[in-house]
C-alpha cells in the first residue's frame, strides 16, 4: 500500500478547449497537429493565459503531435516537462493527468497542457476490424474483446442486456440537452433491441461512436490557479495502474484473476484514488465513467465501489445514474452520445459540473470522479473538487 495523499489538491484544472467534433475521418485533410494546436489555443483562451506560457506537455496513447512540435509552434521560451503515457486508447488518460499534476505540484513546470488529438483514418480506426474480413477468428475488434467480459459478468452475476441498454439510454438522454453532442436523438429499449448485433451480447448501441477532434486541458498548481480567469477545479486525487497479471487486459490478456476479468480492471486504481484523495464513493456527487462499451460503465461502478461486486446492473436499472438519480453519470453524453476523444471530454464535463456550467448541471455538485477507459495497462482515474 502506498501512503498517497501528498498530491491532494496541490494541482488544479484552469482551462480546457477543443476543436469541432467531427465524424470518423472527417479531419484527415486537416491533419493531426492542426487539431491539437487549435485545442491548446482554445484551452489557453479559457484559462486566460498565452500558449507561450505552457512549459509542460503530457499526453497518452502515443499521441502523434509531440511536445517539441507544440512548444515550437507557440514559441515557448522554456520547455520544462514532457510525459507520454504508455498504453493505447483512453486508459492512460488518467495517468497523463497524474503526470501533469505531479509536475506542477512539485514545481517542475508552471503550466502543463494535457493534449489528445484523434483522426480515425480508415487504417487507424480504434474500433479495429476494418478493411478485410479475416478468414479465421481471433479477437479482431475491441467490441469482441469487451464482450467477453460482458458475457462473463452476465454469467456470474446475472447482469442483463436491459442493464447495458440503460447505460446507452442514459447517455442519449443527457446528450439531448447538449448542443455539442453528435448523437442527440433519445433512444428507447426497443431501439436498443432493434440495433444490429455486432458481437453477441453487444449490439451497435452498446458501442461508442468513432469520431475525430482535438482536446486540451490546462493544469497548474493550486496556488497559481487562484489568479486566473476561471474558478479553478482542484485535482483532489489521481491514480493509475492495473491489477496483477493484467497486461493487455481484455484486449488479449485473458489470464488475469477471474475476478478482474469480469471487471473494468480498476479495483486497485479505485482503492489508491480514494486513499490519495482522502475520500470514498459517498463523497462523489457526479461520475464520468469512460463508456466505450456499455458493460464497462457497469463494471466501473462496481470497481469504484458505488455498487457491490455483481450489483452494477441492478444499480443502473434503479435509475441511479440518471440526472435525477443518486449518482448522475456522464451528464455530457459520454463516448456513446457526445463524442469519442479518449476520455478528455469526460474531464471537460467534470470541470463544467464544478464550475456550474454543465447543460445538465447537477445542483450542489462538489466532487466529480473521472474514470479513464477500461483498457490495456495502465488505466487511471481522477477526483476533482470544487474550490471553496
Amino acid at each position, binding site marked *: 500500500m502506498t501512503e498517497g495523499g501528498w498530491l491532494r489538491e496541490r494541482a488544479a484544472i484552469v482551462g480546457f478547449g477543443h476543436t469541432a467534433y467531427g465524424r470518423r475521418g472527417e479531419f484527415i485533410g486537416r491533419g493531426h497537429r492542426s487539431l491539437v494546436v487549435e485545442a491548446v489555443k482554445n484551452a489557453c483562451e479559457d484559462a486566460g493565459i498565452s500558449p507561450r506560457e505552457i512549459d509542460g506537455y503530457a499526453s497518452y496513447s502515443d499521441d502523434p503531435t509531440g511536445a517539441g512540435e507544440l512548444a515550437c509552434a507557440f514559441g515557448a521560451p522554456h520547455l520544462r516537462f514532457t510525459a507520454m503515457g504508455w498504453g493505447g486508447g483512453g486508459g492512460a488518460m488518467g495517468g497523463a493527468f497524474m503526470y501533469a499534476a505531479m509536475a506542477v505540484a512539485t514545481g517542475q513546470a508552471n503550466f502543463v497542457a494535457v493534449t489528445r488529438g484523434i483522426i480515425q483514418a480508415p487504417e487507424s480506426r480504434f474500433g479495429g*476490424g476494418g478493411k478485410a*474480413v*479475416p*478468414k*479465421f*477468428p*481471433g*479477437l479482431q475488434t475491441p467490441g*469482441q474483446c469487451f*464482450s*467477453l*467480459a460482458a*458475457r*462473463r459478468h452476465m*454469467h456470474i452475476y446475472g447482469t442483463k442486456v436491459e442493464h447495458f441498454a440503460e447505460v446507452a439510454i442514459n447517455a442519449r438522454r443527457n446528450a439531448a440537452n447538449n448542443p455539442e453532442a453528435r448523437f442527440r436523438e433519445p433512444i428507447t429499449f426497443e431501439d436498443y433491441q432493434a440495433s*444490429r*448485433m*455486432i*458481437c*453477441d*451480447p*453487444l449490439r*451497435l448501441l452498446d458501442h461508442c461512436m468513432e469520431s475525430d477532434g482535438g482536446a486540451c486541458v490546462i493544469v497548474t498548481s493550486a496556488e497559481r490557479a487562484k489568479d486566473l480567469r476561471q474558478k479553478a477545479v482542484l485535482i483532489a486525487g489521481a491514480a493509475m495502474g492495473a491489477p496483477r*497479471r493484467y*497486461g493487455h487486459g481484455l484486449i*488479449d*490478456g*485473458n*489470464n488475469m*484473476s*477471474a475476478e478482474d*476479468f469480469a471487471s473494468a480492471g480498476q479495483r486497485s486504481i479505485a482503492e489508491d484514488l480514494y486513499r490519495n484523495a482522502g475520500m470514498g464513493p459517498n463523497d462523489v456527487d457526479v461520475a464520468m465513467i469512460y463508456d466505450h462499451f456499455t458493460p464497462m460503465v457497469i463494471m466501473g461502478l462496481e470497481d469504484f465501489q458505488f455498487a457491490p461486486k455483481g450489483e452494477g446492473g441492478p444499480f443502473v436499472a434503479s435509475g441511479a445514474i440518471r440526472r435525477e438519480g443518486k449518482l448522475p453519470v456522464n451528464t455530457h453524453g459520454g463516448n456513446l452520445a457526445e463524442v469519442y476523444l479518449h476520455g478528455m471530454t469526460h474531464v471537460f464535463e467534470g470541470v463544467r459540473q464544478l464550475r456550474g456550467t454543465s447543460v445538465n448541471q447537477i445542483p450542489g455538485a462538489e466532487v466529480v470522479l473521472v474514470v479513464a477507459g477500461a483498457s490495456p495497462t495502465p488505466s487511471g482515474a481522477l477526483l476533482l473538487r470544487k474550490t471553496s
Partner: protein
Amino acid sequence: MTVDIERRNMLPSPGWSEHTKPYWLAAGRGELVIPRCDGCGTHRWPLDAACYACHATEFSWSQVPGTGRVFTFTWVDFPPPPDGERNITVVELDGTQGEPVRVLSWVVGIQRESLACDQPVEIVFLTFDDEVSIPVWRPRRSGLKLQMPTLG
C-alpha cells in the same frame, strides 16, 4: 513441403512466427502445448518475458491434456463471417500448474443457444496444411468419434 507463410499468417492469435512455431507444429501432430517454466514448472500463458512465479526466463513447450471448460465467449455477428456462424471462445485448460491458463480459440459444431460458460470442452484439430493444424474445441462427449472438419 513449402510453407505458405502468407496463408499461415492468417492463423488466429498468437499467429505464425518463429516464436510460436512449436505451438502450430505440435497441433499438426495432434498435441496441445503450452509454454512451461523450466525453473518451477508453472505454465506461462500468455508467454510473458519471465515466469511470474519464479522469474526464470527459460521455458519449454509442454503438452497438456486438451480438456477444459468454456470461460467466456462471443459471436462474430458483424461483419458476418463468410462461412457461417462463428464464435470466439476463451477456454480455461485442465491440467496446468499455477494460476488458471486460458486460451483463445473457438468451439466448433455447436449452435448459438447451446454454447454456455462453464461448459466442458475438449480439443479437436482443424487440418490447415500438411504440417500445421489449428487447435479448436468441441463440446466434451467422451467416446464419440468426431468427423474432423477441414478448412478450405
